[in-house]
């Protein structure tokens, strides 16, 4: 079935990981949904790059963290936090495109 991440996640958030990185956390509602998303392999560096219109080499990692039923990805910030042209010093409002991401998982 096709679902939006916002419908299967309990938490979707973004935040700085230091002044040069932006990190995204997706915590799924339960272990079952988390495992289905992992098996579908539908959140990759390429998917993150596509979502944010950045080149895949700007995606540092995509990590599966089972204890929190979470998938996490970190990207290189377009600019260092607070540099001229900054829009979000804390990086706390960059998560919205992930909420709308449609993934295909088992029923």
């Amino acid at each position, binding site marked *: 079935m096709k679902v939006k991440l916002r419908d299967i996640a309990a*938490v979707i958030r973004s*935040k*700085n*990981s*230091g*002044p*040069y*990185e932006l*990190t995204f*956390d997706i*915590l799924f509602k339960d272990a079952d949904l988390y495992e289905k998303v992992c098996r579908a392999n539908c959140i990759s560096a390429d998917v993150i790059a596509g*979502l*944010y*219109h*950045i080149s895949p080499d700007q995606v*540092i*990692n995509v*990590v599966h*963290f089972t*204890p*929190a*039923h*979470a998938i*996490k990805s*970190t990207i*290189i*910030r*377009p600019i*260092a*936090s*607070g*540099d*001229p*042209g*900054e*829009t*979000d*010093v*804390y990086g706390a*409002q*960059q998560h*919205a*495109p992930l909420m709308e991401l449609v993934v295909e998982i088992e029923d």
Partner: protein
Amino acid sequence: MKKENDTAKNGKETHTDACTPSGSGKETHADACTPSDSGKDTFPDKCFRVLSPTAILGYGFPTSSFEAGMRENPHVLAVDAGSTDPGPWYLGAGASFTDRNAVKRDLEIMIPAAIEADIPVIIGSAGGSGGEPHLQWNLEIIREIASERNLSFPIAVIHAEIDQELVREAVKAGRVSPLHPAPELKPEALDATVRIVGQMGMDPFLKALDTGARVILAGRAYDPAVFAAMAVRAGFDRGLAIHMGKILECAAIASTPGSGSDCMMGWLYDNSFEVEPLNPARRCTTLSVAAHTLYEKTDPYRLPGPGGLLDLTETSFTAVNDRRVRVSGSRFVPADAYTIKLEGVRSLGFRTVSLAGVHDPIMIGQMDDILASVRERVTDNFSTRRLSYRLDFRQYGRNGVMGALEPHPEEVPHELGIVIEALADSQETANTIVSFARSTLLHFGYPGRISTAGNLAFPYSPSDFKVGEVFGFSLYHLISVDDPCELFPMEIVASGSGVHAAGRGEGVRPRADNSRMTEVNP
């Protein structure tokens, strides 16, 4: 400085070796933790308790939660005061991002309670950024409290601001490397840097604890260090102590519902630790605690810090009951070389901003073109003056929040927030550019305009705001050191005049109630 540190280190080793059961009756009190009985064997229940009142000093906490925490007989009150999150300005300007009255309110409760309970208060990253002005700012608040409460106690002050010349020499010696993805440190970037701090690990705190100081006030510090140092000194496992510190540093944020302004308690044992919020309205679940491990981290399994890495690949989270979580398996892996993280900022110049709104659909539909024309007009108007500036327009409602990462920049909103901003080499130039851009945009005759009285809605008079000097990060690098304390000199200062509270270990009173200790033993 190096020599002093060696002496201090040796002093500590001797002192630890000489650890013997202390005076009569005292050994029956698990929490009579004095410099002469800091070994783990003096903790009969093999449990070290840490109370974290708030996520950031000044964020506050309910007194009921704090009192519940004090009833758990903590061995230390620890709080982290800092972060790079609020951006580079605070480090550059030497100002705190938390309010003075709010910081004073928290310390006014914490310090007298800790003195009464005969436990130390440890504060890391004083004043938010942990530079010298931040440290002095916080020290002044502590002295003010001491004076108002008629208290006198020794304070260990650990400095974390680092001389530019020292970094320059270290760069030459190849001891400085960027923390990916920060750029290589160019000499001109270092020359332009106005303030540098180093993020101290646990070792300077171990030294400070040896002095018997009642309050330890440190400049920029690795967040978990303030929570972990005293436990590690007592012989508890470093990996578990640091991981517990990682959770406690954000206080009740790791509980559900999470809060940065409520207390959290940690119990550290031989092979595990437990955390529980002190407000009955909150609870820790395996999920809330595990989720916190992800927070603001690049890789949740490997968390680098001063002197090594916290390895969480074998960590497990289990529920003790519906409010408390036990964590085990976290390991500290020492690094080959001891490195300290450096944070530094350079001046970007002076900023002026103006805020306005637009509701005219004809204007909103061609905003990009209008702003380009205004920019051209500004450039042309001052072309003979050779002003050095950068002019930016932000469009809130289109891509103001996400900038280059915005997925839908083409969508036209019914209302638009405009920020006109100039960054220049002087405040005067920044003011000039914003003022001219604002008046030009206000009366700009764009194609099809039928609203001819003015293009902008200003919420304020005056419409322009002079921000002053602003800063950008220039250093986010690692420096390798021979001695973990060499960049962080310490001094012991008196809190001022008043009734003298002895250094810890002098005149320790038996505690009234130790019954809880056995209750928390797993």
